[in-house]
């Protein structure tokens, strides 16, 4: 019952254990990956929106990855207001030009950055807050015509999701 540890025996044991370890780690990969979103979920990860029915001043809410996205066809007044705000007045300083690709179209996630409620302001009859954009009824955050936080407890501006213009009147979000 002896265990003479010759160097050769040690090497073989080491090689076997290493290869076994590699095998076990490789086996773990498909299991862990299976927990990621499936292909059907990912297929719904981008949405194409036709902007042509949206007239100036109108807003559209779409669902993207389970969350609301506000798409606003901004009037020239609203664009002016958004551009003329000084950076010092902003809690989360961001120039309007950084938040839009075509200044006529504002695309932001309709989720308040405070605690996640959906702000009001999409409908013409809705309360829009003190800055003409959106107002969150939960704790009183006010967003401006660029979706930036101006008053209230929310720390950040309404996030801009990734999107591209497929044509002049069609965008793909995500």
């Amino acid at each position, binding site marked *: *019952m002896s*265990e003479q540890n010759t160097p050769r025996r040690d090497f073989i044991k080491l090689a076997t254990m290493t290869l076994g370890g590699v095998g076990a780690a490789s086996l773990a990969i*498909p*299991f862990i*990956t*299976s*927990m*990621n979103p*499936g*292909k*059907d*979920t990912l297929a719904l990860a981008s949405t194409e929106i036709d902007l042509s029915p949206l007239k100036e001043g109108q807003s559209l809410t779409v669902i993207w990855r389970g969350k609301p996205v506000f798409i606003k066809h901004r009037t020239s007044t609203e664009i002016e207001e958004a551009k003329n705000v000084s950076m010092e007045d902003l809690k989360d300083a961001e120039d309007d030009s950084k938040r839009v690709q075509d200044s006529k179209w504002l695309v932001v996630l309709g989720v308040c950055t405070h605690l996640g409620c959906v702000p009001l302001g999409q409908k013409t009859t809705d309360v829009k807050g003190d800055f003409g954009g959106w107002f969150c009824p939960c704790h009183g955050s006010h967003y401006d015509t660029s979706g930036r936080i101006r008053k209230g407890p929310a720390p950040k501006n309404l996030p801009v999701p990734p999107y591209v213009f497929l044509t002049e009147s069609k965008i793909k979000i995500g």
Partner: protein
Amino acid sequence: MSANDPQGYKKTLSSPYTGIKGWIDSRLPLIRMMEAEYLKFPVPKSLNYFWSFGGIAMFCLIGLILTGIFLGFHYKPSAEDAFNSVERIMRDVNYGWLIRYLHANLVSFFFIATYIHIFRALYFGSYKAPRELVYIFGLIMFFLMMGTAFLGYTLPWGQMSYWGATVITNLFSAIPFVGDAILTLLLGDFNVGDATINRFYVLHWLLAFSILGLVIFHVITLHMTGSNNPTGSEPQSWDETLTFHPYITIKDLNATILFFIILAFVLFYYPNILGHSDNYIRANSMVTPAHIVPEWYFLPFYAILRAIPDKLGGVIAMFSSIGLLALLPWLDTSKVRSCLYRPIWRICVLLFALDFFILMYMGGKPAEGIYVIIARFGTAYWFLFLLVLAPLVGFLETPKQPLTISNYLKSKKA
């Protein structure tokens, strides 16, 4: 207990180890237990590869639980969604097809390993005193395995799932007086349906983890007696034993890898060969498949069930075919353990194994004509083997003198 407190009520922490190892081990003695039970544990030197199948079975069980958990993240246990959720796993979940096929094929290979493992017990007398409880816990686990497999097979909600569930649960109505009430209680409805699949999903998990728990009792009872070996003779000296590690660990590792190579061939190139194509058809309560067949590992018992013309009789025969196996340590009257030294019993056991395969074949055929006649003979032999041959052959046969482990090893070397 020391000389100073013969009562032993004064508890002091101690451990053979030092440092952090010692700190943990003195409070939770797992480290010294693992060393005693899985490293230093003495094992007869004469073991052959039949003894590797217990460990292989355990790897299959662990694989089933892991794949089961990851399938469970995606599966939906309702009559409406189950079939679609399984197809979603196959098509949309990353590597879902791999996890699903692995789960399904591991079941078959778990049964293969277990059947070989049980054959070893029968052939070498591992069920005999003092290992009766090892054997009985093993049979309980086998019973739970069959329950788990049956429940699991209903979950994809294919045609075989649904109709197999209908046929087998209908067996409960054979119980006199309370049968129908028990059936309705079990199903949660008047037919197999949404209520059934939901609870079968829960029971599937419950039974699977119960098997895992029983493994502990199976191993503890085994470690109280030590392993049997092909001679049936207990080790007489340290020279006739080896430490579990590294000798048996590396030997079992070899056997396990080879077993999994065979599994890999089936899994990656013939993943549906052990299944039934009808289960890729959505369950339809209005259409019964032409031939309802259970999975291959149930076929011998299915044959026994259908061999008896009476419904209740068939149920009793099916359950007692395994139940009576549990009595084998007492039914078998021989003082000699291993078939190597029991010439008559050896034939009986090999015939029993052949009978198992014959019944398996019959179970897959329609229950008519020559098939049911052969199944009846097969069933008769099964019970003859347990109830008549086991006591009689032990009494009447003249066994050979069992070799000691050392002499056996010497004779093999020659």
